[in-house]
């Protein structure tokens, strides 16, 4: 039994359409331990978001293996991948991606319903953990961007996933809100022991991770 939550072997990704073929990732070998806090850094267009989408089971790699929590995922059906995604993974995006027509509470509740969980106390706990209990009935448009990202974090951790994937979580925030979100990630990591993979441009954000992985031109750069 390995203690790696994510293992990739020779992972490659090439986007194809009728006119062109664009290779993005080349032979990515990666091992991330359970409970590890990893930052992935690299210049724009280097393939880090693509890697995150593959690790988050939103994309299927062109070749190679991806083992998530001891389960080889490459040949899984879309529904099984969706099942794994909703049970093991929580996403935090740069633009928060909250559902605009729902309240903060309902945004978390809908995620819980998709996961098939009982709501008892789980949503309240998630809201409390990001200090947003008093804003539960506000819609995203009524919240500041920092508050919206905190709700997005609450949604990502409400089901206590094994892995939280954050794509530039502070990219749209001012420095004060960035600090607050980063502190939130630190707390989540320490208190829940959840694995965090954070894609970032920010050196400050990356420095709080246990490990930084650099990607350039679709390849992991080993120092």
């Amino acid at each position, binding site marked *: 039994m390995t203690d790696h939550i994510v293992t990739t072997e020779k992972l490659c990704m090439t986007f194809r359409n009728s006119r062109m073929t664009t290779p993005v990732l080349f032979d990515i070998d990666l091992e991330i331990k359970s409970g590890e806090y990893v930052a992935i850094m690299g210049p724009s267009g280097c393939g880090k978001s693509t890697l995150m989408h593959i690790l988050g089971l939103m994309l299927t790699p062109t070749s190679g293996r991806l083992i998530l929590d001891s389960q080889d995922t490459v040949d899984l059906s879309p529904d099984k991948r*969706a099942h794994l995604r909703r049970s093991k993974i929580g996403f935090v995006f740069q633009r928060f*991606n909250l559902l605009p027509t*729902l309240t903060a509470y*309902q945004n978390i*509740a809908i995620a819980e319903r*998709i996961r098939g969980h009982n709501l008892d106390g789980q949503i309240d706990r998630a809201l409390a953990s990001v200090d947003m209990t008093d804003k539960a009935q506000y819609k995203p448009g009524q919240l500041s961007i920092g508050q919206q990202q905190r709700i997005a974090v609450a949604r990502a951790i409400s089901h206590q996933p094994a892995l939280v994937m954050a794509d530039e979580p502070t990219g749209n925030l001012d420095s004060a809100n960035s600090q607050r979100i980063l502190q939130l990630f630190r707390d989540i990591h320490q208190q829940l022991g959840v694995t965090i993979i954070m894609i970032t441009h920010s050196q400050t954000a990356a420095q709080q991770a246990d490990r930084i992985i650099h990607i350039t031109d679709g390849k992991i750069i080993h120092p």
Partner: protein
Amino acid sequence: MFVLAVSNLIHKKVRSLLSVLAVAIAITLLLVLVGLSHGTLNEVSQRMQSVEAEIVVRDRHFDLGSMSGGKLWEKEIPHLLDIKLDEQTKPSPADSSKTSTANISPPAIERVIPVFLGRMKLAGLSQNVFGVYPEDFPCFAGPRRLLEGVLFKDMDSPESAVKLFDTEAAQSDQSTDYIPLIIDQRLSRASGLHVGDSADFGVIPARIVGVVETGVAGRVFAPINMLRGANGISARTAHLFFIKAQKSLNTDQLQQLCEKIQQTTHRSAILVANYSQVLRDNFRNLTIFVNLVSVIALVICFLFIVVTIHTSVLERSREIAILHSLGASRSLILMQTIHESLIICSLGTLLGIVCAFGARWLIQTLQPLMTVQMRFSWLLIAAVIGLVGGILSALYPGYLALRHDPVETLSFE
């Protein structure tokens, strides 16, 4: 997921409301058109079935829809009254060489009730006037009470008819007589006509002498001789013969009697019980037209829903991508679009049913002689059409939602 569908619909209030209205209009149109066509046909056939007779005989060229065409002659009545049903004795296998013998039964027909049909305008609508012999009127009234006035007793003597249709007297306004009319309660309410009120039958005056409870075969009755005279006919003709058969005859024998009448008289004979079906066959084209209009209305309505949900899916590609990222399965995302469509169609169907009842009230208030029938089974069918249409309308937009590339959508940060 239901809450998301509701919140999305509330978010686009006007569009949602228009969609609900589109479904409501289609369902109302469906119910009212079907209710009006079936209601009218059923009401007419029920009235005809109220006659205390089992068979209707008419000339083969007489059209039940327009109530016009070939005539019958009263001199045919004795032949009809002579018709007997043959009771065939089956030959026994041992005696197969012998021809079957027929035991002749008593006459099968107890009474023939001739009806001469005329037309006149009452309550703004052209009405069929049933010309009947006064002594036959109870066969039409049955258990229905005469609410006002008197029956035609002593009002149909050939003398009075002659006097009435002396055209010179009529034109010089020296005529003191009139055609007595008995109308049904519904026509009385619709027209406001009561006993003693006058009506015109061309240049010949007519007067309401009685009002009978609703449900009788004709809305207007007149003495047969007077009606013939008013139509310039002196011969003893009729348009319909209602046949009252012997009470002992069962349904099969009545059917045999119909066939026998057709064979002997070369007239068309149908069971009164089958009148509804015959009428329906007669108006088959109308029924097809009504059904076609209803189907077209429904198709247009559901295409509107497809466009609405399609637009909604296109507008919410990010939302669908978010659901993907949260781990929503394909069926869950499809259900999301189906939920929205179902909510629109359920509300639309409900509103459509309410509007159909409103339209029925309005039609029957403005045109009291029209019947819009509402059957529970039709409401149920409308509800099923609404729900099934809702699901089908969501399938294509739902399929498009499933084809969304969530990564591409979420990448447009």
